[in-house]
């Protein structure tokens, strides 16, 4: 292609070198930028074809507000719990042998499990603590009823528990670089200056790790906020969280009569994730200043 085009280019090299990236830009143009553009433009088209913000008024409904709160609730609870447990596990990994078998297998497993989700993951928990599940029946045989106040498993609390299954490994993966950056010498320096463990965590390690911890929590939040497959498999009731609301609008008859609403909702979701991820990027940059 290059050789054939050379005579036409008349020796000017600059325009020709652009040809190399054309396939990539055409591809992402069609399958990434165009869909994003469709969402942006479509959200501004009212059902009657005029350009207006009426779709965003359509979001401002009690049932939409409820799914928005549901999404915020499950994302924040699962990200905070996931961050705490994930940080503990990451600490247990980081204090071990850096080339050891344990660390290698935990990191590999975390890589798989962090991507895990959907029907398979839901089945795993149904088979464990569902009312036919292994652990549920095992406890029942010993006279312990897991759900004395009604089964909470098929609702938001159950979904939160399932989300932890991929949130904790994700936290381990993203938080461990910060823990690895902590030098043992800093602890020794604290001790030689007369500080104890509390002083070390409060004044040295804590302030250093906190921005990274906060950033990783935000990443987990965005991760939970975007998750759809697991919720769809577990929840019998539709529209409890935003992704299920998007699905309802895309598949139902009422959805096809107001396509703008689905796009406005998608845009709102993108906006939330974009803001959260930007703050995450800022906090990561702050951490990377001392992380080398």
């Amino acid at each position, binding site marked *: 292609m290059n050789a054939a085009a050379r005579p036409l280019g008349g020796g000017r090299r600059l325009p020709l070198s652009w040809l190399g990236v054309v396939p990539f830009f055409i591809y992402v143009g069609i399958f990434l930028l165009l869909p994003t553009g469709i969402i942006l433009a479509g959200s501004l088209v009212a059902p009657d074809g005029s350009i207006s913000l009426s779709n965003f008024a359509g979001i401002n409904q009690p049932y939409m507000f409820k799914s928005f709160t549901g999404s915020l609730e499950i994302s924040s609870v699962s990200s905070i719990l996931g961050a705490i447990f994930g940080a503990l596990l990451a600490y247990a990994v980081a204090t071990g042998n850096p080339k050891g078998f344990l660390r290698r297998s935990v990191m590999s497993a975390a890589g798989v499990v962090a991507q895990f989700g959907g029907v398979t993951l839901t089945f795993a928990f149904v088979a464990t603590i569902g009312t036919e599940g*292994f652990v549920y029946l095992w406890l029942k045989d010993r006279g312990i009823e897991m759900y004395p106040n009604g089964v909470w498993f098929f609702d938001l609390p159950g979904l939160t528990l399932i989300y932890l299954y991929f949130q904790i490994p994700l936290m381990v993966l993203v938080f461990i670089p910060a823990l690895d950056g902590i030098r043992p010498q800093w602890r020794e320096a604290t001790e030689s200056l007369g500080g104890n463990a509390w002083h070390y965590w409060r004044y040295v390690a804590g302030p250093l790790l906190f921005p990274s911890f906060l950033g990783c929590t935000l990443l987990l939040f965005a991760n939970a906020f975007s998750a759809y497959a697991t919720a769809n498999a577990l929840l019998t009731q539709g529209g409890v969280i935003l992704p299920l609301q998007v699905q309802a609008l895309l598949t139902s008859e009422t959805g096809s009569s107001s396509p703008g609403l689905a796009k406005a909702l998608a845009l709102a979701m993108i906006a939330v994730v974009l803001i959260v991820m930007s703050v995450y990027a800022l906090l990561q940059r702050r951490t990377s200043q001392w992380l080398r």
Partner: protein
Amino acid sequence: MTGARRVRLQILRAVIFLFAAAFFLVPIGAMFEFSTRGIGVTAPRTLSAWAAIPSTPELATAITASLELAAITSIMMLALLLPTMVWVRLRLQGLNRIIEFICLMPLTVPAIALVVGIKPLYIWISLNFTDSILALAFGYLILVLPYAYRSLDAGLAAIDLKTLTEAARSLGAGWGTVMLRVVVPNMPSAILNASLLSASLVLGEYTFANLLNYENLQVAIQYVSLVSAGTSIAVAVASLLFAFVLLMILSFAGGRLQVRSPRGRA
């Protein structure tokens, strides 16, 4: 480190690992246990749910389709991304940030939101070109971009790309030869990493397939679960084990390849 503190730390680590192992392994074990249950309370253990997998045509079709999609997506990803990334590093340094930004964009556009914008495209594709499930590979390539970009980026950063390509070019190699016989052999673990990450993401994908009305592995598992819970859970366990095997290949082959190629790092 003092002795007492070391002991305390080791006890804390053991407790954390114990809890983590229970939380992460029990559900997988329970899933296996569930798939070997017989019908009825006192029925003996049976593998009939597993044996039913090949005789459920819906599942066999979906498994083939998902495996094909995984292969096609990985190959398309390498064919599109690797030459572009090499070219940008050699000739168009200024575009580096833009390419990176675009490749990481799918991280901030949730799949459930992207599918809203991509649905009109797929309606158009199925009307004008093909209604084959393999068309999903176009969308999947977008979903794997961030992960593929990161591993290829790490691989390219570890080799001296400029010197290698200049040497090959001055010896008369064309760009095809440079790519296939110089760049690719110098970063095998990064390429393997990117391909396996893409493959495992495609095998677990549900959102696009379900909302664009295609029946891939995950969608089929859900359909079958309505008829026979045992069989669908058996497939779920099998697909999970398959993902683990893929990753084990990755970590072992990756480890060995890295030992072999520190020369390129120079």
